[in-house]
């Protein structure tokens, strides 16, 4: 007899300025009968278990520094924590009616979530400033050894990624503010 598969592990790439995609994907998986058990590896890897197809709402939050009350409040309200990492929380709840449960009542909270993320990127970039000032008189020619060249390439790519993330998050904030009007 063929044994049916009961667990599933999937990777899904998503970005902090556009978490709607991962929420929608996880909700679609639940509708197909895959229950999200946990998320790990930078919240990019998702573990599922076979379940009945269910109407599920998945919400992502980036709340900043939280007190222990944060978790209690969500759990009292019927939400289950399925993943946590790098300041992000992934919450899951089942529902039956037409009204889709939300962790936020308005757009303001979504804007604040993106603003906290933007603050992180800007802080990291500003933190590089002393390093750039100290190295301002160095020439690129000085990066002669392979190790220093590899470092330079990695470093430049990393900075570009963070700059891109900051720009993407800012434009998300602008889009959300437009939705308010």
């Amino acid at each position, binding site marked *: 007899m063929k044994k049916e598969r009961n667990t599933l592990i999937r990777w899904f790439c998503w970005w902090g300025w556009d978490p709607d995609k991962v929420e929608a994907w996880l909700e679609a998986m639940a509708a197909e009968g895959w229950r999200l058990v946990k998320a790990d590896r930078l919240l990019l890897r998702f573990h599922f278990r076979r379940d009945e197809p269910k109407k599920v709402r998945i*919400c992502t*939050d980036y*709340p900043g520094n*939280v*007190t*222990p*009350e*944060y*978790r*209690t*409040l*969500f759990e*009292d*309200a019927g*939400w289950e924590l399925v993943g946590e990492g790098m300041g992000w929380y992934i919450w899951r709840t089942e529902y039956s009616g037409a009204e889709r*449960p*939300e*962790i*936020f*009542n*308005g757009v*303001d*909270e979504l804007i*604040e979530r993106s603003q906290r993320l933007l603050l992180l990127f800007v802080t990291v970039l500003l933190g590089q400033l002393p390093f750039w000032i100290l190295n301002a008189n160095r020439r690129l020619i000085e990066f002669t050894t392979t190790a220093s060249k590899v470092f330079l390439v990695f470093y430049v790519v990393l900075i570009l990624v963070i700059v891109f993330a900051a720009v993407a998050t800012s434009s998300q904030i602008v889009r959300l503010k437009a939705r308010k009007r």
Partner: protein
Amino acid sequence: MKLTNAQLAYVPMSETAYYILLSLIEPRHGYGIMQHVEALTNGRLRLGPGTLYGSLSRMERDGLIDVVAEEERRKIYQINEVGMRVLQMELSRLKELYTNGAVALGVQL
């Protein structure tokens, strides 16, 4: 007692902030607030836990509410004098809105 700019900025108030402050005339924890607001509005307004957590943190920081007890990772909040002042300011604003609207539309007050 003079209110700070941060405290004055609560008026005009969002619907969620208004009902949260109104609930805290009695001491309540977060989930207690959710249940109370849902009952008060006949199920219309269901506070999301993310919204509630953010509002409570902000109101506590700005000195509108106090933590009066803490049990099993649940804080019990209550409105203080500043919160009451802010709530009364909002209420007179709502009263003006309502009165003008009622007069203009010929609704009996």
